């Protein structure tokens, strides 16, 4: 579904991704972990098409097409979804109108007729229930005055409504209390299928107790330095990230030594 090869990117002339390789297949859940500043959220931004990020090298293929060539809205219509770490408040745009517009444009792109009012309402109710999203929030302005937890749950509600093939959750667990975390995780688990995939970006292992990943990758200094299964997450939880820094320093010394020789 998603093939990332040797991806390099920079923001404001600062190199932040330094050669990422990652393949995600349908039905898989990948967790990306790593200390602050390692490039986790940058990877999410590059994949979603945030304009301040510039790809300098490498390629990304999404369902057979060059993802990097697409505008952000085309990526979304092709089935990519980014749950924002900091969802934006937009007073004056109602949640409902926003979702209707998004769904209509996505469906038009796929040559599907727009949902009529009744169908939309039914879908909206069904998904609200699925992700336990308060009906009253649906009618309010987009994220305006929502608590941190409500904003994150709104992201999951949108995810449920738009049914992407690949969802990237960018630190969705940050700022959530344990009950909200359970609700968000339960929502994601209900949405998991053999046809879709998830990339879950998180700093802590906590979320992975509820959403069990197939693969865990550790991102450090713009590279994936270690990949493994769920056990890797537990190991990180126990040992922290400090050992990474040491290992990485050693590696760099070796590389430099090799170049020097």
């Amino acid at each position: 579904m998603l093939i990332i090869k040797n991806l390099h990117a920079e923001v404001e002339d600062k190199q932040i991704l330094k050669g990422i390789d990652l393949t995600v297949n349908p039905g898989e859940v990948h967790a990306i972990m790593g200390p602050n500043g390692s490039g986790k959220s940058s990877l999410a931004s590059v994949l979603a098409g945030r304009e301040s990020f510039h790809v300098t090298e490498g390629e990304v293929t999404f369902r057979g097409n060059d993802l990097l060539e697409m505008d952000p809205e085309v990526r979304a219509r092709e089935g990519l979804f980014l749950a924002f770490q900091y969802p934006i408040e937009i007073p004056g745009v109602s949640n409902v109108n926003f979702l209707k517009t998004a769904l209509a444009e996505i469906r038009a792109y796929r040559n599907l007729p727009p949902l009529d009012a009744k169908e939309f309402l039914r879908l909206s109710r069904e998904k609200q229930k699925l992700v336990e999203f308060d009906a009253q929030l649906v009618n309010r302005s987009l994220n305006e005055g929502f608590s941190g937890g409500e904003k994150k749950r709104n992201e999951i509600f949108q995810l449920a409504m738009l049914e992407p093939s690949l969802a990237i959750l960018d630190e969705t667990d940050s700022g959530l209390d344990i009950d909200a975390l359970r609700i968000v995780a339960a929502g994601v688990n209900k949405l998991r299928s053999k046809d879709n995939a998830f990339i879950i970006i998180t700093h802590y292992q906590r979320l992975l107790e509820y959403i069990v990943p197939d693969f865990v990758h550790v991102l450090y200094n713009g590279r994936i330095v270690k990949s493994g299964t769920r056990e890797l997450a537990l190991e990180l939880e126990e040992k922290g990230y400090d050992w990474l820094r040491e290992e990485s320093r050693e590696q760099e010394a070796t590389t430099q030594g090799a170049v020097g020789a």
Partner: protein
Amino acid sequence: MSTTQEQSFPLYEEVVNEFGKLTAAGRTDKARQTAFERFRLLGFPSIKNEDWKYTNITRFLKDGYALESPVHSIPAGLLEKAAIPALDCYQLVLVNGVWDGKVKGGELPKGIEVFRVAEALKARSNAVLFEDKKWGNQHFANLNEALYTDGLFIGADGDCDKPLHIVHLFTADHNLLVQPRHVWVVNTNAGLSVIESTLSATGEAKIWVNSLTEIIVHKDARLDHTVIQTASPGARLVQHTTVRQKKQSLYNSYTFTLPGADLVRNDLQARLEEDHTETHLYGLYLAAGNQLVDNHTLVDHQKASCFSNELYKGVLLEQSTGVFNGKVYVHKDAQKTNAFQQNNNLVIGKRATIDSKPELEIYADDVKCSHGSTVGQFSEEALFYLRARGIGEATAKALLINAFAFDVTEKLKLGAVESYINQSIRHHIPAEHA
């Protein structure tokens, strides 16, 4: 010593000749003469006048305009364009400032009186209706006072069950100046809602509309006043409105200017002549093309314990120019005044400009006044968020413009008008504008 302004605009000569003809025919009175003398002293405004500093109308004045207007039929489709879907109202249609005497939507309730100003001029003495003769340094108001011939009088003695929708249609087959003069009186305890739509179709010809509306809202009376300006290119609108508020009266104004007319200049003056009045002035201007849209407002707090709140928002597309000048004047006697003003602008066109000027003059010492003015652009973050959900750039921008306008449109009490305005905003933001 006063000097008459000799101006080289062909229109200046036209109006001088016209007034000479009226005088020769014995059809002027003291009020018209005073106003015309005033106009001759002032001439047409230029950027040397403080109130016109950012609004250069020379290019529009260079076109010649005739004052004689033959009776026109309504251009095809123009009236239909004015309709506000699902609005239950009484509709009155004026063509070039002349009402045909018909009311659509049923018979007006008892206590609501409407007639042509031309009829009023014949029937009664001018002085009874038009008591306020002091147009000061208002160039265009003085010109209108000197030469107006017709307009609409509305008198309300009680509550009107439905809003009055007044449709102003302007049409011409040669360059033309029309000067409608309206007088509305909302009497003690009465309540009225008036919606004015301004549309034009002039083909290649230009039309200059110099309109003057005088409104009196008496004690404990209420007036909701919505103005929707959707005239077409070729139209130059100069609209002066003076509202005189008496004790405990309420005046709500909603002014919407949409792309079309070459020039729109609104002078809205609320004169709070007695205590405990309440005034809300809301405005939204969406300008495009080469449009020049200028809103000059004055809230004149003359007496104590009055409340005024003003919110104007502007969206400037393409190479349009916007001007906002909001003056709040608090007289020495106007203690316990609450006066608030806010003007926010979204400048989208790379060559669009806005001049925003709040002006507060406060001579009382126990008042609460505030003002604010902002100029900004699209939030990149908000735009990205919408696009990341599959919403195309043009639609995303239209959504954000609607959201920006929301603070003003949500104030409208009539749902049908609110949807109509939102629809009109969307309609005017095609991809190439955004």
